[in-house]
């Protein structure tokens, strides 16, 4: 990947425009919905504070200091402030933009390594997790538990260890056929964007999504050569890389000639839908990006748009649903997954209090901002406990990792699943392989 030179024109294009912060009248509405404000109770950790810091930094009365940037990185990017602001200011977007500015002015070497080297190509990320998979498969992990070693670790390390999910023997991407034929008559061709985290960690969810789509008359094309959606690079201030990844992904799906691009990852979905605005000022790509973004659907959205066979089986469980930020606010998708769950006989749905509050994952905040992330998570877990549900459904791998880490040792019997997995269960499809040549179904036991 060619590094892009940081000329003044580049900086100008990534710096937030005056109109993005100038009209903030500091009413304070955003404080009431911000998870980092709720834990710290300081203006500095609030959306309004981040907007003020942005403005003062852009106007030159404050330096772009490590502390100022630190406040931008402390944002969970849950976008609750973006949604509530009556003026139309988007504080979470501003925090992201300021990360880009910081990265251009003072590039960090480790980010180059991580984002240009590792996450750039999905397959490289998969190779890099080999040691983790060995830790899992060699029995070392079981040994750690049996000896109680996990209990003597400091809480922080213990939580991180718990966040390491049960990895499949091989990433789904390696074993998934590129074409999964529809069961019976094919009524549409669907492109499937298999996200890195889904492929690596929650393959069971993606397998379920594929089976349910095939069952409902869709021929699914799942290209292997896609790249990371770009969200991690964007979150860590490398917009340039995210744009490159976007262009490559658009090309891949253009070649397939599909009408719709489906993903079962909330984060990938919101990023793919955002390609249109990310590339909106690139004359060579604006139209292609807009055409691509219009085709993108979350799996729950897609299944709500097509005629769906009523599942015959029952799932006798009390289920609650956690709204991923990237689905609820990133894509305004929150009715659809609940509607899918309501199709299932026997399933008792209980609405989760504060369902649309961030779980504290925000991609990697449990690693980078442990204390705040843990407190936000604890509140989420208390709310889950109050529902008495045995299953939490949520369509985002980052949320699911976070919830699984939190539930371990606290409520081990509570399962965390993608909503489409329950639909799959109700169809009685669970465990069957999607198409010939598929890997061993059920190899991934993430619940």
């Amino acid at each position, binding site marked *: 990947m060619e590094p892009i030179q940081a000329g003044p024109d580049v900086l100008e294009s990534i710096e937030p425009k005056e109109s993005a912060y100038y009209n903030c*009248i500091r009413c304070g509405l955003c404080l009431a919905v911000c998870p980092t404000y709720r834990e710290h109770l300081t203006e500095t950790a609030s959306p309004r504070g981040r907007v003020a810091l942005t403005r003062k930094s852009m106007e030159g009365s404050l330096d772009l200091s490590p502390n100022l940037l630190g406040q931008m990185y402390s944002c969970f990017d849950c976008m609750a402030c973006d949604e509530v602001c*009556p003026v139309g200011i988007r504080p979470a977007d501003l925090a992201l933009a300021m990360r880009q500015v910081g990265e251009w002015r003072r590039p960090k070497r480790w980010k180059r390594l991580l984002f240009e080297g590792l996450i750039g190509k999905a397959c490289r990320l998969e190779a890099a997790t080999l040691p983790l998979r060995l830790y899992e498969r060699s029995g070392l992990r079981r040994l750690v538990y049996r000896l109680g070693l996990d209990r003597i670790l400091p809480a922080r390390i213990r939580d991180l260890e718990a966040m390491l999910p049960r990895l499949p023997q091989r990433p789904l991407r390696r074993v998934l056929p590129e074409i999964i034929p529809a069961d019976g008559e094919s009524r549409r061709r669907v492109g499937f964007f298999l996200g890195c985290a889904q492929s690596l960690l929650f393959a069971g969810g993606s397998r379920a999504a594929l089976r349910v789509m095939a069952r409902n008359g869709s021929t699914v094309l799942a290209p292997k050569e896609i790249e990371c959606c770009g969200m991690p690079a964007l979150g860590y201030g490398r917009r340039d890389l995210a744009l490159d990844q976007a262009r490559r992904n658009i090309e891949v799906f253009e070649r397939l000639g599909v009408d719709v691009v489906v993903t079962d990852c909330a984060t990938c979905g919101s990023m793919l839908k955002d390609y249109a605005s990310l590339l909106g000022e690139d004359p060579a790509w604006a139209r292609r990006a807009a055409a691509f973004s219009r085709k993108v659907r979350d799996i729950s959205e897609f299944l709500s748009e097509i005629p769906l066979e009523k599942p015959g089986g029952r799932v006798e469980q009390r289920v609650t649903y956690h709204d991923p930020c990237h689905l609820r606010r990133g894509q305004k998708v929150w009715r659809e997954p609940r509607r899918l769950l309501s199709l299932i006989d026997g399933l008792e749905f209980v609405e989760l209090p504060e369902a649309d509050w961030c779980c504290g994952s925000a991609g990697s905040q449990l690693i980078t901002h442990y204390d705040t992330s843990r407190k936000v998570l604890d509140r989420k877990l208390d709310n889950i406990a109050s529902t008495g549900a045995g299953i939490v459904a949520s369509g985002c791998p980052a949320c699911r990792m976070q919830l699984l880490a939190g539930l371990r040792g606290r409520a081990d019997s509570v399962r965390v699943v993608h909503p489409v997995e329950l639909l799959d269960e109700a169809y009685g499809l669970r465990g069957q392989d999607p198409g010939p040549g598929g890997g061993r179904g059920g190899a991934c036991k993430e619940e």
Partner: protein
Amino acid sequence: MIQALEKIVGRDGVLATPEDLAVYSYDGTFAEGRPQAVVLPRTTGQTADIVRLAARERIPLVARGMGSGLAAGSIPATGGGIVVCFTRMNRILEIDTVNAAARVEAGVVTADLQAAVERKGLFYPPDPSSIRHATVGGNIACNAGGPRCLKYGVTGNYVLGLTVVLADGRVLQTGGKPIKDVTGYNLTALFTSSEGTLGLVTEALLRLVARPRYAMTALAEYDSLEDASRSVNAILSEGIVPATLELMDQTAIACIEEAMHLGLAADVEASLIIETDGSDQQAVLGEIEAAGRICREQGARRVKVAETEEERAGLWRARRSISPSLARLAPNKLGEDITVPRSAIPGIVRKLRAISAAYGLPVVIFGHAGDGNLHPNILFDGRDPGQREKVERMVGEIFGAALAVGGTLSGEHGVGVLKRPYFEAALGPVSVAVQRSIKRALDPLNILNPGKMFAD
């Protein structure tokens, strides 16, 4: 000084980086004043220690909650000083269902208090538009109002007693759970609306009432702002006392429609939001119907009663968002808070429109018309010195118009920094002198929120 503060509240309770000081230099207005440090006490004892330290060192103290105030009352006004931020004193200490009273710390968010008492079948009526991002302490310091004041009264009507740290660090307890109390001066009332200039309120004992079981909300739309403002008096004169009677003009409606997409008609010149409440469903329904009839008689084009809780919540969310959503139209706005006898409402509305026309800057009119409290908001661009100068003259005229009909500067925002120049004109020299001597008696060193209220 930082170290001394850290000794009192611990390291995580003191903020002093350039970034911290920058974000604690503003509240809900455009005014700014930078503190030397920010301290977040967790107890009354810590607050008293902070005050003693400040008295010894002669450092100004500025009390602050969530910083949503609209008079720049919670920013340092005299250069430097310590902001005492009460957001971490946010415990609800007691909800006494028998005596219908709640004891809370100053940093409790008003909406959280309301939710907690409503779960017990009780009701805390004061409802400033900032309920979700304002604290009880700030509400008391400004004697905050809100739409429901029309029927239920302002914050001060619900304060039974206070715990106040005085300027020398002593802790004063006022009032108690009895509703009747005439033993001595009413110190509770004195500290309510004192804007942090007489003492620091750390706890409050609040009166609760029974929760009304039914509420109905209607939206009345008018082709003429004049008809809408006349309807207010027509409704009240018939003996109907709605919980709220809110007025908003065309610009206000257009702004919230753009922000929230509720389907409000864009071509009406004004709307009223009317809510009736009570424990007798028939009576509540009867009153909303009567109010609707009167609105139609006064020229309302359409009266629509919200049919679902969602619709009703949407109307109130819209009403609460008017003020901030105006920033969509201009980079700056100055929201005033005049209050007039309600018979003068149609006249003052005419006058506000005349002032707007004379200066060529938009004045958006909305507010709690039922209790005579209007929020004319002047929209302008602060980068243009010509506009800034016009705004100053317009504010003078608006205040003049309110005072001329027996009204006052501020119904619920307070004086703070912004209305300081007009303080004496509103009150007269005798009242100001009496208030100054109270201030001197309680804060002889002038360390409590100096530079506010009094034009010195």
